[in-house]
């Protein structure tokens, strides 16, 4: 969405006092059977999790409160480790996709750090190491555009609605939710009240809610205390952390509910679901191996780019609102079929002309395109200006030649460039075999010199030029 549309929508949302959808389709597939949620509270300065809430989304979460989050003993995380592993096993056994809901990206960062800390920790138990590995799998998958494993409630709402707040205020999930609640009379006021307390996986530390300082003090006191007094101190820490991690969990659940209540169809995401499920299943079964070798890094980059292309393409294919925006930038061409050259109906060869009023088109000769909403594909063979200043796109039809509904003069069509989205794993396999020194060597080799012609290259080239 461009800046103008964005501002207009925000003004409208503010006037209507509710969030407005900016998409008519979802970028997230429906939750699979194996769907869980995770919310965390971390120590800001240490990047250590001090409370975690987890479970399925249809019941109250299990909460772990860590009285000594920076200590070496991590056995208190075992219930979380066991839950995560059991969830993964369910997904593997069922050969089905999995989904992890999080309130926001700070939780993802916390899981990533947790993963880094324990996935190769030789002093940790096998269960904790596995937990670290699973956290790394989750965090890595989240970096791939179009992935369907991780659902960040804040990001999902940001991607599908606008509110009457400034974009930067929409980083706060609780504030966003004010725009979904019909009971809130003035969502702008309410949102700004809510922003006073963080919704970013940390304890508040404001003058009226000094919980972070308080927990810090209680921990220090508890260290030198004993007996019943120590237990009371620990109970206070527990109560504060439990309350705030539950708050994070509740926000996540409410964010998910708000997103689902938008009722956006999730058509066209099958390819992304399949790709994401395959990647995650492989990592869950075989372990996490970060890309270090150049061919692995190249594969990772290709996967990311293919994911981006597929996600963009799926969004355009299934969302008329996005297509309307893309038309203004020439990425989608809407027009009318003005000519069909098909000697035998329903058979190849078949060429068509599409006349569009758009003067700005981003299609180029030999681009592969598809007609939105159909199985018709083609290749751009001509681009000409129409007498009225529009564009005539000539296509060689390469697929769906029997779809006469759009391969007829007068039919309205929308053209969108096909996604290249190709990861050349076969070529990368060859690269791995060949181990070119440029990518795998530590020093550049010296090769045998060839006998020089002894002449100036310029002179040779000049002599070779045709008269």
């Amino acid at each position: 969405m461009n800046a103008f549309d964005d501002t207009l929508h925000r003004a409208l949302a503010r006037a209507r006092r509710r969030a407005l959808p900016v998409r008519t389709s979802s970028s997230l597939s429906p939750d699979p059977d194996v769907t869980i949620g995770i919310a965390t509270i971390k120590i800001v300065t240490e990047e250590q999790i001090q409370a975690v809430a987890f479970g399925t989304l249809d019941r109250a979460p299990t909460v772990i409160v860590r009285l000594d989050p920076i200590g070496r003993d991590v056995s208190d995380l075992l219930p979380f480790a066991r839950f995560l592993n059991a969830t993964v096993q369910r997904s593997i056994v069922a050969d089905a996709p999995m989904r992890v809901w999080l309130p926001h990206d700070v939780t993802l960062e916390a899981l990533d750090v947790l993963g880094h800390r324990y996935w190769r920790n030789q002093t940790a138990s096998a269960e904790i190491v596995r937990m670290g590995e699973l956290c790394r799998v989750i965090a890595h998958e989240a970096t791939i555009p179009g992935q369907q494993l991780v659902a960040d409630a804040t990001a999902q709402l940001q991607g599908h609605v606008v509110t009457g707040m400034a974009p930067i205020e929409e980083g706060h999930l609780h504030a966003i939710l004010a725009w979904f609640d019909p009971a809130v009379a003035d969502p702008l006021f309410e949102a700004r009240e809510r922003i006073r307390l963080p919704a970013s996986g940390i304890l508040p530390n404001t003058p009226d809610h000094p919980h972070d300082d308080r927990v810090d003090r209680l921990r220090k006191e508890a260290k030198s205390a004993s007996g019943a007094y120590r237990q009371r101190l620990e109970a206070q820490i527990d109560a504060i952390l439990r309350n705030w991690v539950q708050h994070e969990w509740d926000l996540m659940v409410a964010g998910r509910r708000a997103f689902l209540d938008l009722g956006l169809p999730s058509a066209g995401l099958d390819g992304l679901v399949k790709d994401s499920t395959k990647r995650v299943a492989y990592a869950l079964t075989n372990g996490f191996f970060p890309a270090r070798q150049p061919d692995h890094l190249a594969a990772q980059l290709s996967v990311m780019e293919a994911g981006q292309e597929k996600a963009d393409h799926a969004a355009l294919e299934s969302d008329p609102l996005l297509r309307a925006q893309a038309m203004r930038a020439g990425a989608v061409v809407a027009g009318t079929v003005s000519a069909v050259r098909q000697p035998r109906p329903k058979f190849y060869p078949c060429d068509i002309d599409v006349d569009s009023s758009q003067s700005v088109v981003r299609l180029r000769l030999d681009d592969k395109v598809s007609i939105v909403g159909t199985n018709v594909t083609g290749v751009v063979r001509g681009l000409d200006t129409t007498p009225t200043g529009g564009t005539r796109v000539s296509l060689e039809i390469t697929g769906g030649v029997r779809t006469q509904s759009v391969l007829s003069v007068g039919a309205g069509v929308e053209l969108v460039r096909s996604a290249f989205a190709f990861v050349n794993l076969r070529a990368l396999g060859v690269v791995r075999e060949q181990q070119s020194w440029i990518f795998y060597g530590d020093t550049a080799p010296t090769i045998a010199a060839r006998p020089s012609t002894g002449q100036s290259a310029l002179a040779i080239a000049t002599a070779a030029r045709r008269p």
Partner: protein
Amino acid sequence: MTATRQARLDHADRVLDEAIERSLFGTDPVSIAKSPPGAGKTFLVECAAAVAAGAPGMRVVIVTPGVSQLYDIAERLLAYRLPRIELAHATHRVLPPSLVGRIAASSGWSTGLNVGPGVIVTNVHLLASYLHQLGPGSFDLMIVDEAYQLAASDFMLVAHLASRVLMVGDPGQLDPVHSADTTNLEAGAHKIHWSAPAYVLDRFPATPVFGLPVTRRLLPDTSDLVQASFYPDLPFQSVVDPAERRLEFRLPGLVPGIDHALDAVAAGKSLVVVTLPGAPPPHQEADLDLAGLMAEIADRFLVRQAQWMGNRALTESDIGCIDPHVIAGGAIGDGLRQRGRGAIRVDTVERWQGLQLPISIVRHPLSRPSTPTGFDLEAGRWCVALSRHQIGCVIVARASVGDTIRDYVHGCDTVAAGARDSTWRGFEAHRTIWNTLVAQDRVFAL
């Protein structure tokens, strides 16, 4: 021609000779030729191919990042008598009319190709799709054209196919385009998202590098500014004789501001700015007034019957409009059509890369509402925009651009610690260029 200019040309010829000699016959498996805009890098590629396919009898492959570049280089090579000249492109592509019947073209790779000494031109993705038919030593020499536009991850697929590699490209232009966020890759030991030459130099700094020392396109004033702003590691100078690039108008100027700027171009200032008062409208996709001004400037060149002295009268095909954004470019196109100048090409910077023309009219990328983004500040994009013209470039902007540059505050968290910050580099270039143009009285306010 002055002795100084001749000396520069002789030096450039020696560099070209040395680059080809060493890459074809030396003991280094990879050589890199860095070229500023208009230095003749395609000519270097032609010469290297002609030499290699001649007496040494090499099997040469010229690899390009994209398909349009391969058609261009193939057409250029047809001017040479080569033992073999072939082209291979993807199966769904159709040969441009200018090449039909003139070159042995293959849809995909076939076994009859690359037999004996000669040259085959193809793009990297095509070659990567047929690795099962190729192997180490398939070619004696690989010339990577426009190498700075080719990502190392793509070059990796074909790197093993030739024992010698010559990379030729412009390090100041746009980096390889990645649709995905590559921030995480920046921390890796292998910067496979960088351009192929940058990757090679990162890993093997001793790789021979030949810097072409001249530009044959840019006039000295543009050349000096472009070199200082975008090519800190590649010294070059203009060898263009200003007397051969003079513009004159048959009709005197009438429109204040615009015609003053055009007269400045005719007086030898090859880089000038025309500003509209105020700031861009905050809630529009395109600054319609600015787009209209660009169309009017283009029109004024033709209405006043601009002549390339000693050469020809300028026509619509001699003028191009460059806008970083497609939608804003569309508004310029509309303005041109309304003036009956529909044949003047308007395109994005990416599309102008590799091309040249006498007059360019460029929208300043910072002439937009709100804080500049990384896209607006990208050094390569600004470099390409300012280096297409042979005679004159008119930058068009809102007067607020000066304030935008003055007030810009760069975030310290835009890249990972230790990573290259191309956005900051771009801002520095913007600041240098704007301040220089102001100091040299090249800004014409309307």
